[in-house]
Protein backbone atom coordinates (compact mmCIF):
# COMPACT_ATOMS: atom_id res chain seq x y z
CA UNK A 1 0.00 0.00 0.00
CA UNK A 2 1.48 3.33 -0.94
CA UNK A 3 0.93 6.64 0.72
CA UNK A 4 -1.16 7.78 -2.19
CA UNK A 5 -3.46 4.83 -1.74
CA UNK A 6 -3.68 5.51 1.92
CA UNK A 7 -4.68 9.07 1.25
CA UNK A 8 -7.51 7.94 -0.92
CA UNK A 9 -9.13 6.11 1.92
CA UNK A 10 -11.86 8.11 3.53
CA UNK A 11 -12.07 8.58 7.23
CA UNK A 12 -14.86 6.13 7.67
CA UNK A 13 -12.99 3.36 5.97
CA UNK A 14 -9.97 4.26 7.98
CA UNK A 15 -11.49 4.18 11.38
CA UNK A 16 -13.00 0.82 10.56
CA UNK A 17 -9.52 -0.32 9.77
CA UNK A 18 -8.28 0.97 13.04
CA UNK A 19 -11.03 -0.73 14.95
CA UNK A 20 -12.81 2.44 15.86
CA UNK A 21 -9.84 3.89 17.60
CA UNK A 22 -9.25 7.60 17.14
CA UNK A 23 -10.23 8.60 13.58
CA UNK A 24 -7.09 9.90 11.91
CA UNK A 25 -7.04 12.98 9.74
CA UNK A 26 -5.84 12.57 6.21
CA UNK A 27 -2.92 14.89 6.79
CA UNK A 28 -1.86 12.96 9.80
CA UNK A 29 -2.00 9.84 7.79
CA UNK A 30 -0.04 11.33 4.95
CA UNK A 31 2.68 12.26 7.34
CA UNK A 32 2.60 8.76 8.67
CA UNK A 33 4.80 6.41 6.95
CA UNK A 34 3.27 3.43 5.25
CA UNK A 35 5.16 1.01 7.41
CA UNK A 36 3.67 2.44 10.54
CA UNK A 37 0.27 2.22 9.00
CA UNK A 38 0.90 -1.35 8.10
CA UNK A 39 1.77 -2.12 11.67
CA UNK A 40 -1.48 -0.68 12.91
CA UNK A 41 -3.30 -2.76 10.39
CA UNK A 42 -1.45 -5.83 11.56
CA UNK A 43 -2.40 -5.22 15.14
CA UNK A 44 -5.99 -4.84 14.06
CA UNK A 45 -5.76 -8.08 12.16
CA UNK A 46 -4.35 -9.85 15.13
CA UNK A 47 -7.11 -8.50 17.32
CA UNK A 48 -9.86 -9.52 14.98
CA UNK A 49 -8.33 -12.79 14.09
CA UNK A 50 -10.35 -15.83 15.01
CA UNK A 51 -7.61 -18.38 14.86
CA UNK A 52 -4.91 -18.70 17.44
CA UNK A 53 -2.06 -18.73 15.03
CA UNK A 54 -2.96 -15.39 13.55
CA UNK A 55 -0.22 -13.79 15.55
CA UNK A 56 3.32 -14.82 15.94
CA UNK A 57 4.76 -15.32 19.35
CA UNK A 58 8.34 -14.81 18.54
CA UNK A 59 10.80 -13.42 20.97
CA UNK A 60 13.21 -12.12 18.44
CA UNK A 61 15.44 -9.13 18.20
CA UNK A 62 13.16 -7.43 15.76
CA UNK A 63 10.34 -7.64 18.25
CA UNK A 64 12.55 -6.24 20.90
CA UNK A 65 13.36 -3.31 18.67
CA UNK A 66 9.77 -2.82 17.71
CA UNK A 67 8.81 -2.78 21.34
CA UNK A 68 11.51 -0.33 22.09
CA UNK A 69 10.34 2.14 19.50
CA UNK A 70 6.67 1.36 19.79
CA UNK A 71 4.96 4.72 19.87
CA UNK A 72 1.73 3.55 21.43
CA UNK A 73 3.32 3.13 24.81
CA UNK A 74 3.60 6.01 27.12
CA UNK A 75 7.31 6.45 26.98
CA UNK A 76 9.00 7.73 30.06
CA UNK A 77 12.45 7.14 28.72
CA UNK A 78 13.37 10.79 29.18
CA UNK A 79 12.94 10.38 32.85
CA UNK A 80 14.93 7.21 32.83
CA UNK A 81 18.09 9.10 32.25
CA UNK A 82 18.56 7.99 35.85
CA UNK A 83 19.00 11.08 37.88
CA UNK A 84 21.05 9.74 40.72
CA UNK A 85 18.65 9.86 43.62
CA UNK A 86 18.45 13.15 45.36
CA UNK A 87 19.57 11.44 48.51
CA UNK A 88 22.69 10.72 50.42
CA UNK A 89 25.61 10.32 48.15
CA UNK A 90 27.65 9.68 51.24
CA UNK A 91 26.45 6.18 52.04
CA UNK A 92 28.47 3.97 49.79
CA UNK A 93 26.16 1.01 49.54
CA UNK A 94 22.87 2.72 48.90
CA UNK A 95 23.41 5.20 46.13
CA UNK A 96 21.88 3.82 43.01
CA UNK A 97 18.47 2.92 44.34
CA UNK A 98 16.03 4.38 46.74
CA UNK A 99 16.84 1.97 49.46
CA UNK A 100 17.65 4.66 51.86
CA UNK A 101 16.19 5.38 55.21
CA UNK A 102 12.53 6.37 55.16
CA UNK A 103 12.17 10.01 54.36
CA UNK A 104 9.78 10.73 57.15
CA UNK A 105 7.70 9.18 59.84
CA UNK A 106 5.71 7.28 57.26
CA UNK A 107 6.12 4.33 59.49
CA UNK A 108 3.38 2.25 57.99
CA UNK A 109 3.90 0.77 54.58
CA UNK A 110 1.53 2.29 52.08
CA UNK A 111 -0.28 -0.94 51.43
CA UNK A 112 -1.00 -1.36 55.09
CA UNK A 113 -2.23 2.16 55.56
CA UNK A 114 -4.60 1.59 52.68
CA UNK A 115 -6.29 -1.05 54.70
CA UNK A 116 -7.49 1.39 57.19
CA UNK A 117 -9.27 3.39 54.52
CA UNK A 118 -10.91 0.34 53.03
CA UNK A 119 -13.50 0.50 50.36
CA UNK A 120 -16.36 -1.47 51.76
CA UNK A 121 -17.93 -3.75 49.26
CA UNK A 122 -21.16 -5.58 49.51
CA UNK A 123 -20.50 -9.22 49.04
CA UNK A 124 -22.49 -11.27 46.63
CA UNK A 125 -24.42 -13.44 49.02
CA UNK A 126 -25.93 -16.79 48.28
CA UNK A 127 -29.60 -17.08 49.14
CA UNK A 128 -31.18 -14.51 51.36
CA UNK A 129 -30.16 -16.44 54.41
CA UNK A 130 -29.07 -13.98 57.03
CA UNK A 131 -26.75 -16.60 58.48
CA UNK A 132 -24.63 -16.08 55.43
CA UNK A 133 -24.47 -12.36 55.93
CA UNK A 134 -20.99 -10.94 56.38
CA UNK A 135 -20.81 -7.75 58.37
CA UNK A 136 -18.29 -5.28 57.07
CA UNK A 137 -16.08 -3.52 59.55
CA UNK A 138 -15.83 0.19 59.18
CA UNK A 139 -12.53 1.80 59.86
CA UNK A 140 -10.99 5.17 59.44
CA UNK A 141 -7.61 6.14 58.09
CA UNK A 142 -4.78 5.40 60.47
CA UNK A 143 -3.48 8.86 59.90
CA UNK A 144 -6.35 10.53 61.63
CA UNK A 145 -9.58 12.07 60.37
CA UNK A 146 -12.34 11.78 62.90
CA UNK A 147 -14.26 8.57 62.98
CA UNK A 148 -17.68 8.98 61.47
CA UNK A 149 -19.21 6.25 63.58
CA UNK A 150 -20.09 6.88 67.17
CA UNK A 151 -21.30 4.15 69.41
CA UNK A 152 -22.22 6.35 72.29
CA UNK A 153 -23.40 9.82 73.07
CA UNK A 154 -21.39 9.98 76.29
CA UNK A 155 -18.12 11.75 75.57
CA UNK A 156 -16.19 9.63 78.05
CA UNK A 157 -17.58 6.43 76.64
CA UNK A 158 -17.03 7.69 73.18
CA UNK A 159 -13.38 8.23 73.96
CA UNK A 160 -13.12 4.72 75.28
CA UNK A 161 -14.81 3.37 72.20
CA UNK A 162 -12.47 5.36 70.05
CA UNK A 163 -9.51 3.94 71.91
CA UNK A 164 -10.74 0.42 71.31
CA UNK A 165 -11.31 1.07 67.66
CA UNK A 166 -7.80 2.36 67.40
CA UNK A 167 -6.53 -0.77 69.06
CA UNK A 168 -8.40 -2.87 66.56
CA UNK A 169 -7.12 -0.79 63.69
CA UNK A 170 -3.57 -1.10 64.90
CA UNK A 171 -4.03 -4.81 65.13
CA UNK A 172 -5.42 -5.07 61.62
CA UNK A 173 -2.55 -3.02 60.26
CA UNK A 174 -0.09 -5.28 62.06
CA UNK A 175 -1.79 -8.40 60.72
CA UNK A 176 -1.74 -7.23 57.13
CA UNK A 177 1.91 -6.28 57.32
CA UNK A 178 2.74 -9.62 58.94
CA UNK A 179 0.83 -11.47 56.24
CA UNK A 180 2.75 -9.65 53.52
CA UNK A 181 6.05 -10.51 55.16
CA UNK A 182 5.24 -14.13 55.81
CA UNK A 183 3.99 -14.55 52.26
CA UNK A 184 7.50 -13.76 51.08
CA UNK A 185 8.83 -17.03 52.37
CA UNK A 186 5.77 -18.98 51.30
CA UNK A 187 7.00 -19.76 47.84
CA UNK A 188 10.34 -21.21 48.90
CA UNK A 189 8.71 -23.04 51.80
CA UNK A 190 6.17 -24.57 49.50
CA UNK A 191 8.86 -25.67 47.08
CA UNK A 192 10.80 -27.26 49.91
CA UNK A 193 7.66 -29.05 51.07
CA UNK A 194 6.88 -30.39 47.65
CA UNK A 195 10.42 -31.60 47.30
CA UNK A 196 10.39 -33.26 50.70
CA UNK A 197 7.09 -34.92 49.86
CA UNK A 198 8.38 -36.18 46.55
CA UNK A 199 11.41 -37.64 48.28
CA UNK A 200 9.29 -39.31 50.90
CA UNK A 201 7.18 -40.89 48.23
CA UNK A 202 10.28 -42.21 46.56
CA UNK A 203 11.49 -43.88 49.73
Amino acid at each position, binding site marked *: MTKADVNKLDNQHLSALLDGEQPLENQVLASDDAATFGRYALIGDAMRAESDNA*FVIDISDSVAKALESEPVYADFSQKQAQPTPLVANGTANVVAFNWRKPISQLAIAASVAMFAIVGVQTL*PQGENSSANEIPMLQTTPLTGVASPVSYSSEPALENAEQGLRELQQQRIGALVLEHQRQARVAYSLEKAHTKAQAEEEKN
Partner: protein
Amino acid sequence: MAPAFADDENPAKELLLQMADAVHNRNFDASFVVVKGKAMEPYRWLHAKQGDTELEHLSLLNGAGLEMVRINNQVTYFEPQSAPYSIATDSIAGPIPEVLFKNIERLSLHYDFVLGGKGRIAGRAAQLVRIESKDEYKYNYWLWLDAESSLLLKSAYVNHAGEMLEQLQLTHISVTEEPAPLLLEMLNRQFPTSLPAVEVSNKESKTAGNNWQIGWLPDGFSLLKSDRHKLDLNNELTDYYLYSDGFVEVSVFVQRPLPGRRPSGSLSSGATTVYVHNAGSFDVSVVGNIPAMTAKAIAESVARPL
Protein backbone atom coordinates in the same frame (compact mmCIF):
# COMPACT_ATOMS: atom_id res chain seq x y z
CA MET B 1 13.18 -23.16 27.87
CA ALA B 2 9.55 -23.74 28.64
CA PRO B 3 9.04 -27.38 29.41
CA ALA B 4 6.81 -29.22 27.01
CA PHE B 5 3.84 -31.22 28.09
CA ALA B 6 3.36 -34.04 25.67
CA ASP B 7 0.05 -35.16 27.08
CA ASP B 8 -1.34 -31.70 27.38
CA GLU B 9 -1.90 -29.30 24.55
CA ASN B 10 -3.63 -26.58 26.47
CA PRO B 11 -2.74 -23.36 24.60
CA ALA B 12 -3.52 -21.23 27.65
CA LYS B 13 -0.94 -23.08 29.67
CA GLU B 14 1.53 -22.84 26.82
CA LEU B 15 1.11 -19.06 26.72
CA LEU B 16 1.69 -18.77 30.46
CA LEU B 17 4.86 -20.79 30.18
CA GLN B 18 6.01 -18.56 27.36
CA MET B 19 5.35 -15.53 29.53
CA ALA B 20 7.40 -17.03 32.37
CA ASP B 21 10.17 -17.69 29.92
CA ALA B 22 10.06 -14.14 28.53
CA VAL B 23 10.04 -12.60 32.00
CA HIS B 24 13.15 -14.55 32.95
CA ASN B 25 15.16 -14.01 29.83
CA ARG B 26 14.48 -10.52 28.55
CA ASN B 27 16.06 -7.26 29.55
CA PHE B 28 13.22 -4.90 30.28
CA ASP B 29 12.25 -1.79 32.13
CA ALA B 30 8.55 -1.57 32.90
CA SER B 31 6.13 0.52 34.90
CA PHE B 32 2.79 -0.68 36.14
CA VAL B 33 0.03 0.34 38.49
CA VAL B 34 -2.01 -1.81 40.82
CA VAL B 35 -5.55 -0.59 41.34
CA LYS B 36 -7.33 -1.77 44.48
CA GLY B 37 -10.79 -0.32 44.63
CA LYS B 38 -10.18 3.40 45.04
CA ALA B 39 -6.53 3.01 45.89
CA MET B 40 -3.65 2.85 43.45
CA GLU B 41 -0.03 1.77 43.77
CA PRO B 42 2.55 2.54 41.08
CA TYR B 43 5.55 0.26 40.61
CA ARG B 44 8.68 0.18 38.50
CA TRP B 45 10.00 -3.20 37.45
CA LEU B 46 13.39 -3.85 35.91
CA HIS B 47 14.84 -7.14 34.87
CA ALA B 48 18.05 -8.21 33.19
CA LYS B 49 19.82 -11.36 32.26
CA GLN B 50 23.54 -10.79 32.36
CA GLY B 51 25.27 -13.96 31.34
CA ASP B 52 23.93 -16.53 33.77
CA THR B 53 22.97 -13.97 36.34
CA GLU B 54 19.43 -12.71 36.68
CA LEU B 55 18.97 -9.25 38.08
CA GLU B 56 15.61 -7.88 39.09
CA HIS B 57 14.42 -4.77 40.83
CA LEU B 58 10.84 -4.02 41.84
CA SER B 59 10.00 -0.82 43.60
CA LEU B 60 6.84 0.74 45.01
CA LEU B 61 6.96 4.39 44.04
CA ASN B 62 4.35 6.01 46.31
CA GLY B 63 4.38 6.61 50.02
CA ALA B 64 7.18 5.35 52.19
CA GLY B 65 8.10 2.91 49.47
CA LEU B 66 9.27 -0.65 49.29
CA GLU B 67 12.25 -1.94 47.35
CA MET B 68 12.81 -5.50 46.32
CA VAL B 69 16.03 -6.63 44.74
CA ARG B 70 16.82 -10.04 43.36
CA ILE B 71 20.17 -11.42 42.28
CA ASN B 72 19.61 -14.98 41.13
CA ASN B 73 18.48 -16.86 44.22
CA GLN B 74 18.64 -14.09 46.73
CA VAL B 75 15.89 -11.55 47.28
CA THR B 76 16.46 -8.55 49.52
CA TYR B 77 13.60 -6.47 50.91
CA PHE B 78 14.07 -2.83 51.85
CA GLU B 79 11.23 -1.51 53.95
CA PRO B 80 10.74 1.79 55.69
CA GLN B 81 10.29 0.53 59.22
CA SER B 82 12.87 -2.21 59.49
CA ALA B 83 16.40 -3.18 58.57
CA PRO B 84 16.80 -4.73 55.11
CA TYR B 85 16.90 -8.50 55.01
CA SER B 86 17.42 -11.21 52.40
CA ILE B 87 15.66 -14.45 51.67
CA ALA B 88 17.07 -17.35 49.69
CA THR B 89 14.43 -17.69 47.00
CA ASP B 90 14.32 -17.30 43.26
CA SER B 91 11.38 -14.96 42.93
CA ILE B 92 10.22 -11.66 44.33
CA ALA B 93 6.98 -11.68 46.28
CA GLY B 94 5.41 -8.65 44.67
CA PRO B 95 1.91 -7.93 43.47
CA ILE B 96 2.10 -10.63 40.80
CA PRO B 97 1.69 -14.18 42.14
CA GLU B 98 5.13 -15.76 42.04
CA VAL B 99 4.02 -19.06 40.67
CA LEU B 100 3.12 -17.40 37.36
CA PHE B 101 6.78 -16.96 36.61
CA LYS B 102 7.46 -20.59 37.37
CA ASN B 103 5.92 -23.85 36.43
CA ILE B 104 2.20 -23.25 36.62
CA GLU B 105 1.62 -26.90 35.93
CA ARG B 106 1.49 -27.48 39.67
CA LEU B 107 -1.72 -25.46 39.90
CA SER B 108 -3.59 -27.78 37.56
CA LEU B 109 -5.20 -29.74 40.36
CA HIS B 110 -7.19 -26.83 41.64
CA TYR B 111 -7.29 -24.35 38.77
CA ASP B 112 -8.23 -24.51 35.09
CA PHE B 113 -6.33 -22.64 32.41
CA VAL B 114 -8.65 -21.16 29.82
CA LEU B 115 -7.87 -19.19 26.69
CA GLY B 116 -9.98 -16.03 26.55
CA GLY B 117 -10.57 -13.46 23.84
CA LYS B 118 -8.23 -11.04 22.17
CA GLY B 119 -8.18 -7.39 23.01
CA ARG B 120 -6.14 -4.25 23.07
CA ILE B 121 -4.18 -3.45 26.22
CA ALA B 122 -1.63 -0.67 26.61
CA GLY B 123 -1.92 -0.09 22.88
CA ARG B 124 -0.93 -3.64 22.06
CA ALA B 125 -2.72 -6.68 20.73
CA ALA B 126 -3.29 -8.88 23.75
CA GLN B 127 -4.46 -12.40 24.43
CA LEU B 128 -6.49 -13.11 27.55
CA VAL B 129 -5.63 -16.18 29.61
CA ARG B 130 -7.87 -17.04 32.55
CA ILE B 131 -6.80 -19.05 35.57
CA GLU B 132 -10.09 -20.24 36.99
CA SER B 133 -10.55 -21.75 40.41
CA LYS B 134 -12.30 -25.10 40.30
CA ASP B 135 -14.36 -24.19 43.34
CA GLU B 136 -15.97 -20.97 44.55
CA TYR B 137 -13.65 -20.55 47.53
CA LYS B 138 -10.90 -18.76 45.66
CA TYR B 139 -10.74 -15.93 43.17
CA ASN B 140 -9.97 -16.32 39.50
CA TYR B 141 -6.95 -14.63 38.00
CA TRP B 142 -6.93 -13.21 34.50
CA LEU B 143 -3.86 -12.24 32.50
CA TRP B 144 -3.55 -10.34 29.27
CA LEU B 145 -0.33 -11.22 27.45
CA ASP B 146 1.31 -9.37 24.63
CA ALA B 147 0.50 -11.21 21.44
CA GLU B 148 4.00 -10.74 20.09
CA SER B 149 6.36 -11.01 23.02
CA SER B 150 4.23 -12.95 25.56
CA LEU B 151 5.10 -10.36 28.19
CA LEU B 152 2.47 -9.48 30.77
CA LEU B 153 0.37 -6.42 29.92
CA LYS B 154 -2.39 -6.63 32.47
CA SER B 155 -3.72 -8.95 35.14
CA ALA B 156 -6.60 -8.99 37.58
CA TYR B 157 -8.15 -10.88 40.46
CA VAL B 158 -11.71 -11.56 39.39
CA ASN B 159 -14.52 -12.77 41.61
CA HIS B 160 -17.13 -15.26 40.53
CA ALA B 161 -19.53 -12.52 39.52
CA GLY B 162 -16.93 -11.47 36.95
CA GLU B 163 -15.96 -8.26 38.76
CA MET B 164 -12.33 -7.21 38.78
CA LEU B 165 -11.26 -6.64 42.36
CA GLU B 166 -7.64 -5.77 41.88
CA GLN B 167 -6.09 -4.84 38.58
CA LEU B 168 -2.51 -4.57 37.51
CA GLN B 169 -1.81 -2.70 34.32
CA LEU B 170 1.44 -1.99 32.56
CA THR B 171 1.77 1.62 31.51
CA HIS B 172 5.14 1.33 29.87
CA ILE B 173 7.70 -1.24 28.93
CA SER B 174 10.93 -1.06 27.02
CA VAL B 175 12.72 -4.21 26.04
CA THR B 176 16.38 -3.65 25.37
CA GLU B 177 19.41 -5.53 24.14
CA GLU B 178 21.55 -4.42 27.02
CA PRO B 179 20.74 -4.66 30.73
CA ALA B 180 19.84 -1.38 32.39
CA PRO B 181 22.93 0.19 34.00
CA LEU B 182 20.94 0.49 37.19
CA LEU B 183 20.75 -3.28 37.42
CA LEU B 184 24.39 -3.86 36.61
CA GLU B 185 25.17 -1.49 39.43
CA MET B 186 23.58 -4.01 41.77
CA LEU B 187 26.41 -6.42 41.16
CA ASN B 188 28.77 -4.03 42.96
CA ARG B 189 26.60 -3.68 46.01
CA GLN B 190 26.67 -5.50 49.28
CA PHE B 191 23.37 -7.01 50.36
CA PRO B 192 22.52 -8.65 53.67
CA THR B 193 23.21 -12.36 53.57
CA SER B 194 20.16 -14.57 53.41
CA LEU B 195 18.51 -15.65 56.59
CA PRO B 196 19.37 -19.23 57.45
CA ALA B 197 17.49 -21.48 55.06
CA VAL B 198 13.91 -21.35 56.19
CA GLU B 199 13.38 -24.16 58.61
CA VAL B 200 11.28 -26.64 56.75
CA SER B 201 10.58 -29.00 59.58
CA ASN B 202 7.48 -28.21 61.53
CA LYS B 203 8.64 -30.53 64.25
CA GLU B 204 10.34 -27.83 66.23
CA SER B 205 9.06 -27.07 69.67
CA LYS B 206 8.40 -23.49 68.68
CA THR B 207 5.48 -24.34 66.45
CA ALA B 208 1.97 -23.43 67.36
CA GLY B 209 0.92 -26.65 65.68
CA ASN B 210 -1.11 -28.15 68.48
CA ASN B 211 -2.37 -25.02 70.12
CA TRP B 212 -5.38 -24.72 67.85
CA GLN B 213 -7.39 -26.83 65.52
CA ILE B 214 -8.06 -25.27 62.17
CA GLY B 215 -11.08 -27.20 61.09
CA TRP B 216 -11.57 -26.13 57.50
CA LEU B 217 -9.66 -24.81 54.51
CA PRO B 218 -10.53 -24.99 50.83
CA ASP B 219 -9.14 -28.02 49.00
CA GLY B 220 -5.51 -27.70 48.02
CA PHE B 221 -4.29 -25.59 50.91
CA SER B 222 -1.51 -27.00 53.05
CA LEU B 223 0.28 -25.72 56.11
CA LEU B 224 3.66 -24.14 55.37
CA LYS B 225 4.61 -22.98 58.82
CA SER B 226 3.26 -22.25 62.25
CA ASP B 227 4.76 -20.56 65.24
CA ARG B 228 4.14 -18.16 68.07
CA HIS B 229 5.68 -14.75 67.74
CA LYS B 230 5.21 -11.06 68.36
CA LEU B 231 3.86 -8.79 65.66
CA ASP B 232 6.18 -6.08 64.56
CA LEU B 233 3.89 -3.10 64.60
CA ASN B 234 2.03 -3.46 67.88
CA ASN B 235 4.10 -6.04 69.76
CA GLU B 236 1.08 -8.30 70.26
CA LEU B 237 1.68 -12.00 70.69
CA THR B 238 0.06 -14.30 68.17
CA ASP B 239 -0.19 -17.94 67.25
CA TYR B 240 0.48 -17.93 63.56
CA TYR B 241 -0.33 -20.32 60.70
CA LEU B 242 0.64 -19.86 57.07
CA TYR B 243 -1.18 -21.81 54.37
CA SER B 244 -0.84 -21.85 50.60
CA ASP B 245 -2.41 -23.65 47.67
CA GLY B 246 0.53 -22.76 45.45
CA PHE B 247 -1.22 -19.68 44.14
CA VAL B 248 -2.41 -17.62 47.10
CA GLU B 249 -1.31 -17.50 50.71
CA VAL B 250 -3.58 -17.40 53.72
CA SER B 251 -2.49 -16.32 57.20
CA VAL B 252 -4.39 -17.37 60.30
CA PHE B 253 -3.75 -15.47 63.53
CA VAL B 254 -5.08 -16.52 66.92
CA GLN B 255 -4.72 -13.89 69.59
CA ARG B 256 -5.78 -12.82 73.03
CA PRO B 257 -9.12 -11.01 72.75
CA LEU B 258 -9.14 -7.23 72.56
CA PRO B 259 -11.13 -5.54 75.32
CA GLY B 260 -14.62 -4.17 74.75
CA ARG B 261 -17.04 -4.74 71.90
CA ARG B 262 -15.43 -6.73 69.17
CA PRO B 263 -17.81 -7.23 66.31
CA SER B 264 -16.78 -9.94 63.86
CA GLY B 265 -16.50 -8.76 60.30
CA SER B 266 -14.53 -8.45 57.16
CA LEU B 267 -12.44 -5.78 55.55
CA SER B 268 -11.11 -5.70 52.07
CA SER B 269 -8.71 -3.81 49.85
CA GLY B 270 -8.49 -5.02 46.29
CA ALA B 271 -8.36 -8.79 46.43
CA THR B 272 -7.06 -8.92 49.99
CA THR B 273 -9.53 -9.79 52.70
CA VAL B 274 -9.09 -9.46 56.44
CA TYR B 275 -11.71 -11.32 58.44
CA VAL B 276 -11.78 -10.75 62.17
CA HIS B 277 -13.68 -13.32 64.19
CA ASN B 278 -14.60 -12.94 67.82
CA ALA B 279 -14.56 -16.46 69.21
CA GLY B 280 -15.25 -15.39 72.78
CA SER B 281 -12.13 -16.22 74.72
CA PHE B 282 -9.86 -15.65 71.73
CA ASP B 283 -9.78 -13.70 68.47
CA VAL B 284 -9.12 -15.27 65.09
CA SER B 285 -8.05 -13.19 62.10
CA VAL B 286 -7.65 -14.51 58.58
CA VAL B 287 -5.74 -12.54 55.94
CA GLY B 288 -5.28 -13.41 52.30
CA ASN B 289 -6.35 -12.91 48.71
CA ILE B 290 -9.50 -14.93 49.12
CA PRO B 291 -13.22 -14.11 49.17
CA ALA B 292 -14.64 -12.92 52.48
CA MET B 293 -16.93 -15.96 52.66
CA THR B 294 -13.89 -18.23 52.58
CA ALA B 295 -12.00 -16.20 55.17
CA LYS B 296 -15.06 -16.25 57.41
CA ALA B 297 -15.42 -20.02 57.11
CA ILE B 298 -11.75 -20.56 57.93
CA ALA B 299 -11.86 -18.20 60.92
CA GLU B 300 -14.96 -19.81 62.34
CA SER B 301 -13.48 -23.29 62.01
CA VAL B 302 -10.71 -22.53 64.49
CA ALA B 303 -11.23 -24.21 67.85
CA ARG B 304 -9.30 -25.34 70.88
CA PRO B 305 -8.05 -28.87 70.42
CA LEU B 306 -10.11 -31.46 72.25
